[in-house]
Structure formats: structure tokens, C-alpha cells
């Protein structure tokens, strides 16, 4: 932060505007206040908030209003329906299976990339980003072409009596695909910042690889790990396109919560659709709150280290 500077006696920068303001500028980072500036500022805030209202706030508010417009009764009714419960259970199951695997992979990939220099390193990092830029439908398509009955591995899988597409394994792999980069991306910069001094010191003092990992590396990356895990959980809970292609959307068998929302909407069961939507929206809100809190923890952590 630079200290505010005393105003020098130069020709007024606002020579076109009437000389309404002779007072020194406030000692903050704001540009000097003048009537025009205040209106410009208020106008900018108003336009930004209006746009956000149209695109984000009203749609978010609408989820809650539609879900509870007939009271809590119909909402609870949906929550008790077997279709909803099996969809919620399946969504949770997929998350529980996918998140730890991707977190473990993310740590491995981040350590591997942070602790080595080689040509093509930038290529591997952008390869990691690939799942972010591929359309979820194309992800699902690739899974069908690989594991489906007419896919590449189809005959072999059928011979072994393993069903992947239109079944749980396919949905797990598709979800793992779309959430692959999150943890690695968040942990990698922390590892690069941390350097290798502490790890080398521990090794010289006789620590084993596992001890170094548990006592030195993991405590240093824990918040980034948690942050990446939250992002990937939010994505896994809501993944629609890829899962929709590989699931076949069989009610009570391969229907996740987002698929339940779409199916109910298509069947004109608006109440059921919004009841499930509100559950997902609440989970998203929790993820956002945790994310905001963690961002503060992370920046505080960084501030302490740089001191």
C-alpha cells in the first residue's frame, strides 16, 4: 500500500468541470471526490447491481420462492418421495467415491509437477486443464464410445459381464473426468511457493518420504487441498451433461439429483423440480460460503509467510 500523497499545487486536473470542489482529496484510494464522480460512481454501482440482479440474484431468489410458494408441505413431500431419495443417495455416493480419488491424484500430480523441471511441463499442465474446456456432452460421448456396448472396449467388457455405460461405473468415471483438475490446480501454486527447503531439511534430519509428506508437505498445502476439494464437490454434485449422456437416466437406478430436476421439469412436475433444485442450491450456497471463508484463510496464510 502506498501512503496517500499530499496534493501538489498543479493546474486542476478537472479544468473542464466547474470548480465546485476545493477541499483536499480524502486520504483513501478513491479518486478525488466531486459531484460528477459521485454520480458516476452511483451509476456504475447501479448498473452493475441491475445486471447481476437480472442474471444472478433474481434467478437464485426464484428457486426458493418457487420451491416454497405453497408452503413447506409440498417441498417435504418431494423430499420423502422414493425417486428423490434414491437420486440424492446416488449423487452423494458418486461424490464420496470420486472426490477422494481425485484429491489423491491432484496431490500426486501437483507434487510431481512442482518438484521437477522438464521440457513439456507447460504442456502437461494444460493437459490437466483439458476437462475444463471440453463440453460435458463430448465427455459423455467419449465414455460411450469407449465403454459402451458398441464402443472400443464394449465387446471385451460384455464378455467379462461388466457394465459401465448406463450404470454407476460410467457415471463415476464421467464425474471424475469433469472434476479432475480442481485439486491439482489449487495445490500446485502452493507447492511452488513453499519451495523445497523445509522438505530437504527434514530429509537431512532423517525423515522418511511419508514423514516428510505428512509433517511438512500436507500442512503447507492443506487449505489449498480443502479449497480444491470444495470446488470439485460442487461440480460433482451438479454435473449434468456428462452424467446425463452415460447414465441413461433410469429412474431410481441411474438418476442423480440434477437429472431428477430436469426430468421433473420435463414432466411438468414443477414443484418436484424446484424442491430438488432448492436442495442443490442450498448445497451450492454452502460451497460458496466455505469457499469465501477459505479464500480469506489462504490470503492470511500467504500474508504471514511473506512477512
Amino acid at each position, binding site marked *: 500500500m502506498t501512503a496517500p500523497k499530499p496534493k501538489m499545487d498543479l493546474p486542476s486536473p478537472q479544468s473542464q468541470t466547474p470548480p465546485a470542489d476545493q477541499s483536499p482529496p480524502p486520504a483513501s484510494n478513491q479518486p478525488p471526490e466531486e459531484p460528477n464522480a459521485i454520480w458516476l460512481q452511483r451509476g*456504475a454501482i447501479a448498473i452493475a447491481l441491475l445486471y447481476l440482479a437480472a442474471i444472478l440474484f433474481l434467478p437464485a431468489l426464484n428457486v426458493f420462492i418457487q420451491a416454497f410458494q405453497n408452503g413447506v408441505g409440498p417441498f417435504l413431500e418431494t423430499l420423502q418421495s422414493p425417486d428423490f431419495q434414491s437420486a440424492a443417495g446416488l449423487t452423494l455416493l458418486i461424490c464420496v467415491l470420486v472426490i477422494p480419488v481425485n484429491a489423491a491424484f491432484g496431490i500426486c500430480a501437483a507434487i510431481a509437477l512442482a518438484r521437477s523441471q522438464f521440457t513439456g511441463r507447460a504442456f502437461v499442465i494444460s493437459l490437466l486443464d*483439458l476437462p475444463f474446456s471440453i463440453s460435458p456432452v463430448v465427455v459423455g460421448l467419449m465414455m460411450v464410445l469407449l465403454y459402451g456396448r458398441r464402443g472400443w472396449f464394449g465387446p471385451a467388457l460384455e464378455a467379462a459381464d461388466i457394465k459401465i455405460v448406463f450404470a454407476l461405473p460410467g457415471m463415476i468415471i464421467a464425474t471424475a473426468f469433469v472434476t479432475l483438475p480442481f485439486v491439482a490446480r489449487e495445490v500446485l501454486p502452493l507447492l511452488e511457493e513453499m519451495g523445497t527447503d523445509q522438505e530437504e531439511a527434514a530429509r537431512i534430519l532423517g525423515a522418511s518420504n511419508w514423514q516428510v509428506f505428512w509433517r511438512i508437505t500436507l500442512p503447507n498445502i492443506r487449505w489449498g487441498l480443502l479449497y480444491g476439494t470444495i470446488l470439485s464437490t460442487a461440480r460433482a454434485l451438479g454435473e449434468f451433461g456428462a452424467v446425463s449422456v452415460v447414465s441413461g437416466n433410469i429412474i431410481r437406478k441411474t438418476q442423480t439429483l440434477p437429472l431428477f430436476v430436469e426430468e421433473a421439469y420435463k414432466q411438468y412436475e414443477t414443484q418436484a423440480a424446484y424442491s430438488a433444485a432448492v436442495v442443490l442450491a442450498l448445497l451450492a450456497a454452502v460451497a460458496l460460503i466455505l469457499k469465501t471463508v477459505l479464500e480469506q484463510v489462504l490470503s492470511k496464510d500467504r500474508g504471514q509467510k511473506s512477512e
Partner: protein
Amino acid sequence: MKISALNPLKLPWNWRVVIVYLAFMLLLPMAALFRQASSLPFDEFWGIATSPIALSAYNISFGTAAIAAVINGFFGTLIAWVLVRYPFPGKKLVDAAVDLPFALPTAVAGLTLATIYSEQGWIGRWFAPLGIQISFTRLGVLVSMLFISLPFVVRTVEPVLGELDHDIEEAAWSLGASRFETFRKVLLPQLFPAMITGVALGFSRAVGEFGSVVIVSANLPFQDLIAPVLIFQRLEQYDFEGAAAIGTVMLLLSLVMLLGINLLQAWGRRYDRS
């Protein structure tokens, strides 16, 4: 630690995990897609990939996503500006809410946007008397792409804006530059790489978007049918060749976009080392 002379057996175990997992998760599925696409003679592949319905779907996907990304380039920068520079009540809440499209499942977004922008909806009813229908038209596709790509611009511009040095702005002011000149000649050149990167990231996300668009649009060919929905429909009809041909085009285009974004980010960081 250096990788010992690229001998796969001497690689550290974490590298082996990474390579096996990436091969299994990323490379194998992509290979399966290319395998299916190349099972067709090239003429036939090209015929499907550039059939009128496919061309119109690319046009709607890429065209609408480009419009959405540019609109968000403006509003996203404005929102980032307001969040960094101006105090107002509820700012923290607004700041956190900008990430909502990252967290809210796309099916939920599609559901609520379709309702709000329908003829009886909170926003749609103001447009209906003007003869403008939003939900179930290409405008609905645009709205859901606006929703999905907004945070990319805000979150890319925000940190750059936060680090800008006020001294340069003040220098411009005290040398007699008007507010507009200061913005155009001093601020914009510094913000521009971040804005373009944010727009590109948002564009890339919007092009692939499926969940919200499939609910908000009517999915009519030549009107509001986007390429991912076309792939989905081809799969539903067990037309694997058709789905693979269009999917390959989409995959190649997303690889190109990924490369472009990486170059853009490198360009944006070109002065960092100084």
C-alpha cells in the same frame, strides 16, 4: 529432483500414478472418439461434420457464446471495477455471489432462468408485450450463456484491477487528462489482457455448456439448437458416427481454444518478471 533420463521404470511413483491416471481418464477416451470418427471415410465424416444442421448448430453455439462473452467482457469489467473501487452496502455478499454460476448446478440454473425469462416470468413479462420471447428461443440460450460465463471475466479482471498503481492514474489526472482519457490511455491498456483472457475463458465455457441451455431453449434445429444438444440427440438415436463426427469437431475446437487461452495468459503475464 530430475526425471532420470525418461526411463519409465525409474520414474518416481507419483509420476507413474499421474501418467497412468491421465492416460486412463483423458487420453483413452479421446482416442476412442478419434477411433470412432476415423472409422468413417473422410468424405463421409466431412459430410456429417459440415451438414447444414451441424453448421447451424456450430453457428448458434459459437455465435451466441461469442456475443455472451463480449457482453460479459463489458459488464464483468464494470462489476469487477465496482467491487474493487467503490464501497457500498452488501459488497461482500455481492462479491461472493459472483461465483454462484461456478457452484450452482447447471440444471438448476436452466430451470430458474427458463421460469424467470418465460412470458409470465419476472423478467420475461416485460419483454413479452414488445413481442420478444426469451425462454425457448436463441435469446434464452444467450441468457444462460451470460449466466455461465460471467464469473470468468469478473474473477480474471478483479485481481489485476486490485493491483493497479494509483500513482499512474493520478499522474495522468494531474497532467490534465480527462476522466475518459485516463481510462482509455492509462487503465484500459493495463486491464486489456485480463479482459481478453476472461472473455476467452467465458467463451470457452459457454460454447460447451449443456445443462442450462438444454432446459432454457426449445432445441429446434436451425433456431436454437446448440452443438452439444445436437450430439446428445444423435446419441439418443444411436447415430454414433454422427455424434462422433460432430463431437470430434467440438473437441478439436476446444483444444484450439485451450491453446489460445494459454497463449493469452502468457501474454498477460509478459511484464510480470520486471
